């Protein structure tokens, strides 16, 4: 009896192709994606960050500093006068500004407490990377100062004919360049706390989950003949599609309000950081949310029109969502991914949504700053709507 029932179970499993795909393919794909995405997680990703250098110093030491920095961070992007806009938008992760007088100051016996090396970063730059870059800058500058002072003392020794020259430490000279190094986030809308980073990521992820709900209901309507009945009553396909899309637009709106409210009010009560909406551009936030919602609903309609069985509806939507999240920087922040994965991430609609949300919540972007991700999302929504419309009529009948 047991064997017969086990055989039944196995046959049912084997004949559920999509269920099997979810069981075997999804973990395999996940392993590949997550391993690639996390490949560099223990190797600080500072090398891959786009940056520029604004060298205002004419001395030789500033050129040495630039060379040292390039060794660890690769070649800088070309500097232009609009670099602050590029940093603000996240196109550059940071700009290293070497102020005039840096070379002279580095060799002076007394260090002035004046910022001569400024690290100006993207408002959304991850905290660890921000601190690591600043510490590295202090270290390089300190080493250069120590070497410069040592060279000066050796020269003094030679000039005093073999008498041992006092090292900088011996004479109590300050070798640390900490006082001349500063780091700042460029006009940050908010401090990039975990909440400030996580709420946008999981909000975008959650909004895309309407795929599962919409597909299930659509399939139910199709299988019971209710959609065919609506069609026989003369209801146009466009009306059926809009009737599905608009309620989910409201659902997405409520999701967004709930998630933001959790970040703003619940997180501090639970002892976490609060999500700050102070100073954000509300128009830009609404535009990004609308675009994310349109993309999510478009994808949901296309997938709902594509699936034929409950098993497909139950697996396809969540699998697509999770893969998009894994690729798109929701599960693994994009900045820790290797170059190739970062480029792939740029094809994930979830990444466009996430970039838009981060631009609003971390960089204080206005509508102009989120136009590109919003346009990409809306374009994706339009494409999916066309696919849905083409498949919808066939499925209804």
């Amino acid at each position, binding site marked *: 009896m047991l064997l017969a029932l086990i055989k039944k179970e196995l046959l049912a499993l084997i004949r559920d192709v999509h269920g099997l795909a979810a069981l075997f393919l999804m973990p395999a794909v996940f392993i590949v994606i997550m391993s690639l995405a996390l490949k560099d997680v223990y190797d600080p990703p500072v090398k891959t960050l786009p940056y520029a250098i604004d060298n205002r110093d004419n001395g030789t030491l500033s050129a040495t500093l630039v060379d040292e920095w390039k060794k660890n961070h690769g070649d800088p992007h070309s500097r232009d006068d609009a670099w602050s806009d590029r940093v603000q938008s996240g196109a550059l992760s940071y700009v290293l500004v070497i102020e005039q007088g840096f070379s002279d100051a580095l060799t002076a016996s007394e260090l002035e407490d004046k910022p001569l090396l400024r690290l100006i970063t993207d408002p959304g730059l991850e905290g660890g990377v921000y601190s690591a870059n600043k510490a590295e800058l202090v270290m390089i500058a300190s080493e250069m100062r120590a070497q410069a002072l040592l060279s000066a003392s050796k020269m003094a020794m030679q000039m005093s004919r073999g008498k041992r020259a006092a090292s900088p430490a011996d004479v109590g000279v300050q070798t640390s360049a900490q006082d001349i190094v500063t780091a700042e986030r460029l006009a940050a809308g908010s401090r990039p706390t975990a909440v400030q980073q996580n709420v946008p990521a999981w909000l975008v992820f959650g909004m895309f989950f309407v795929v599962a709900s919409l597909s299930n209901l659509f399939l139910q*309507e199709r299988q019971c003949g*209710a959609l065919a009945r*609506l069609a026989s009553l003369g209801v146009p396909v466009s009306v059926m599609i809009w009737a599905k899309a608009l309620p989910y637009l409201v659902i997405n709106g409520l999701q967004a309000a709930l998630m933001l409210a959790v970040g703003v009010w619940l997180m501090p009560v639970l002892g976490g950081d609060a999500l700050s909406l102070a100073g954000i551009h509300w128009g830009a936030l609404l535009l990004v949310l609308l675009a994310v919602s349109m993309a999510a609903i478009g994808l949901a309609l296309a997938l709902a029109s594509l699936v034929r069985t409950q098993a497909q509806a139950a697996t396809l939507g969540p699998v697509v969502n999770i893969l998009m999240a894994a690729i798109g920087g929701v599960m693994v922040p994009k900045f820790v991914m290797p170059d190739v994965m970062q480029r792939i991430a740029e094809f994930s609609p979830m990444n466009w949504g996430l970039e838009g949300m981060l631009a609003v919540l971390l960089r204080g972007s206005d509508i102009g700053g989120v136009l590109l991700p919003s346009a990409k999302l809306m374009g994706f929504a339009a494409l999916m709507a066309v696919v849905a419309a083409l498949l919808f009529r066939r499925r209804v009948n």
Partner: protein
Amino acid sequence: MLEIRNLSFHYPGAGRRALDGVSLLAAPGQILGLLGPNGAGKTTLISHLSGALPVQHGDISINGKTLAEIRRATPTRIAVAPQEYAFYPMLTVRENLECFASAGGLAGAHKQQRIAECLAFAQLERYAKTRAERLSGGLKRRLNLAIALLPEPEFILLDEPTVGVDPQSRAFLLEAVRTLARNGAAVIYTSHYMEEIEAIADRVVIIDDGRVLREGTLDELLGGGKAQLHFAVDGITGAPLNALLAGYGSSTKTGDGWLVALGAGKTPLALLAALEQAGGVIRFAEFGRSNLEQVFMALTKHSLRD
């Protein structure tokens, strides 16, 4: 008058036509019984009438206008009550009626009036606030019918509307269908229950393999059947019985007796008298003509279908 002329349809990739030159008429005030084994083409025919399938060959017209024109201008003139429970299980009876009434273009007071009328017609008033998923099979069938009637259609297609219901609900539904025809609607009624078709259909169409095998009134269909006597007899068996029966027509052994198709000029009384004279004791005897099921089985053969 709904007229189908020489309708043919071929599904892409299928080996044969699903419909092959089907012609029939559905007149106002009449019930047209549509009979056919599984895979005969009934659903394809209904799908054409509901607008789900385009006409490939032949034509369908209503009072001289093509079906496509009618569906574009007034799609609600034709209503379909599909075999499935084509409504939303998570909505109440009234919510379903409101949804489909609005989808059919009804609004305002007229919509409310039609909902009330359809609730009353299907005797669903008590269940107006009950979720459809909690209704019994019979009530679901009644809701399915009520939804179809909302826009007051002139042509109503009922696809096996009594599947899975108890005898009381079946009797109620059949009477409801008769009422629809009495009120002037043209009803096309498909069923596998022959006695239902015999009970309510004014005309019957039997189709198989996409073709119309027989079409006519019930009398016309059954008129061709020979008079037959079904009986059981004790006290006479074997060769004497066979020899006796051979003189009255062709005989067939049934489970509990014999079925004799009486030959020309032979009467049942004469056969029964002959059996008694030969020493037989009649246990039971039934006399009549072929019923619809026998005609149907004879026309569509007895082989199992898909």
